[in-house]
């Protein structure tokens, strides 16, 4: 069974991470290096156990484009998110034996290093992926 693990962040936390001069609190090179090392080890373990299907980190929320209809006409909106809105920041797709095992994997993310105020707010969601096979092959 496949599960998706999702992490969230706001444009604000992205700005802190890349040390934008206007950000209230900027991450130090050590903060940044520590999260990189943690993720590398985390991903490598999932790769070694054969549970990792794929993982990606998403770029800045400000680069988002939203496509929708307005009065029946397709409209593109640049950067639809508010500064502090928590949006998808990255995801993992894992294939494992049980929902509990997927949850266990996601729980390891709580030990990801980072500035305390970021860690206090961080969370990850785990959702089963609907990938059930058709009963017969047409």
């Amino acid at each position, binding site marked *: 069974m496949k599960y998706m693990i999702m992490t969230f962040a706001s444009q604000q936390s992205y700005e802190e*991470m890349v040390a934008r001069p206007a950000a209230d609190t900027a991450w130090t090179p050590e903060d*940044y290096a520590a999260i990189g090392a943690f993720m590398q080890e985390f991903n490598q373990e999932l790769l070694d156990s054969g549970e990792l299907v794929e993982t990606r*980190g998403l770029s800045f929320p400000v680069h988002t484009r939203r496509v929708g209809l307005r009065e029946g006409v397709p409209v593109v909106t640049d950067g639809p998110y508010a500064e502090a809105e928590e949006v998808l920041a990255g995801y993992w797709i894992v294939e494992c034996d049980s929902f509990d095992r997927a949850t266990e994997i996601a729980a390891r993310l709580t030990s990801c290093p980072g500035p305390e105020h970021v860690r206090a707010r961080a969370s990850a969601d785990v959702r089963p992926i609907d990938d059930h096979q058709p009963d017969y092959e047409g």
Partner: protein
Amino acid sequence: MTGTGTEDLLRRLAPHVLGALVRRYGHFDLAEDATQEALVSASVQWPRDGVPENPKGWLITVASRRLTDLLRSDQARRRREETVTRWAVVDERGTSDGPPHAADTDDTLVLLFLCCHPSLSAASQIALTLRAVGGLTTAKIARAFLVSEETVTRRITRAKRSILDSGIPFALPGPAEASDRLGAVLRVLYLTFNEGYASTIGPNLQRVDLAEEAVRLARTVHAALPGDSEVAGLLALMLLTHARHRARSGPDGGLVPMAEQDRSLWDREAIGEGIGLVSEALPRGPTGPYQLQAAIAAVHDEAPSAEATDWPQIVALYGVLRQLDDSPVVALNHAVAVSMVEGPEAGLGLLAPLADDPRINADRRFHAVRAHLLEQSGNVAAARDAYEAAARQATNLQQRRYLNGQIARLDQERRAVPKDASRP
């Protein structure tokens, strides 16, 4: 023999086994699957039972048996579709008037020409080349490009179908077509190398070293065509660029620009080999873009520091390269080199026309170079704006951190200057 030893041996033999199979039976698509399966069997059996006396013979036997099975199960379908195989097995020694090569070298070249056929998309060319010639498994190719295995399988299947449909013979192309096709092969190797080199994108998974794989394949092509100057140039370019890889990233994983790299970390042996190759190729001609880029890389690699680099030489080389390649990235690098010789204003002058070039004017690199030159010319306020523009365009976290660091440094330096000494 260790696991890695076996893997190296298998990957070296892969194109020869596939070549022998296609030569004997045709059916490139099924032969390629059969070869993969033989390689997988060997990777399990050899480390356990020892390497057979004639490893290539063993692989050809196992792959042939597997191919027979595949053909048998494929027969019913084929009969239904009533397709005859469009594969024409041609002995290229009868048609080629080039110097005779060993059959193995021929096979590798024929396979490369086939996998890089212009009717395939670049992504398919790369995937098929890495599997059929490089002997990599689908899983490893998927991991290297951070795509799913299904995607790679689809790309390879589609590529094999296009080859089948196009009826391209399994033979070296005629002299008229050969140079175009060789160009496509070199481009695939160059793209593979660059993908490996741009290691800053995506999570830092343990990736197959694509840069090293590209070097290995370029060596094979160079061994088959030792007199081709662009092949030598591409191999030299890869070696001279890859030689700096240990100095390219800082402790926080960020990119270190060449001017700030610790040059004692550069690989002197690779640099020596690259310089040897390009010095031999250039006088032989004809001069092409890979040789010129290699020559530029060689000048950088020979310099003890950024300041002590032979910039006039680099300016001259970019001047020639710009006549062959109108890419705005070449123009950007040319402007940087000119600024090192004639000063930042001259560089900014060359950048000006690029501001109207839609291929580069929204690119982070354009704004970053402009920012750097503006700062050197003393226009700190404009430099800050340009760094901000560059940071806004950067989608990569590490690049954005680097650019924000430049802005913070400018702000700090400005604060450090006493009020009465600041700009009027």
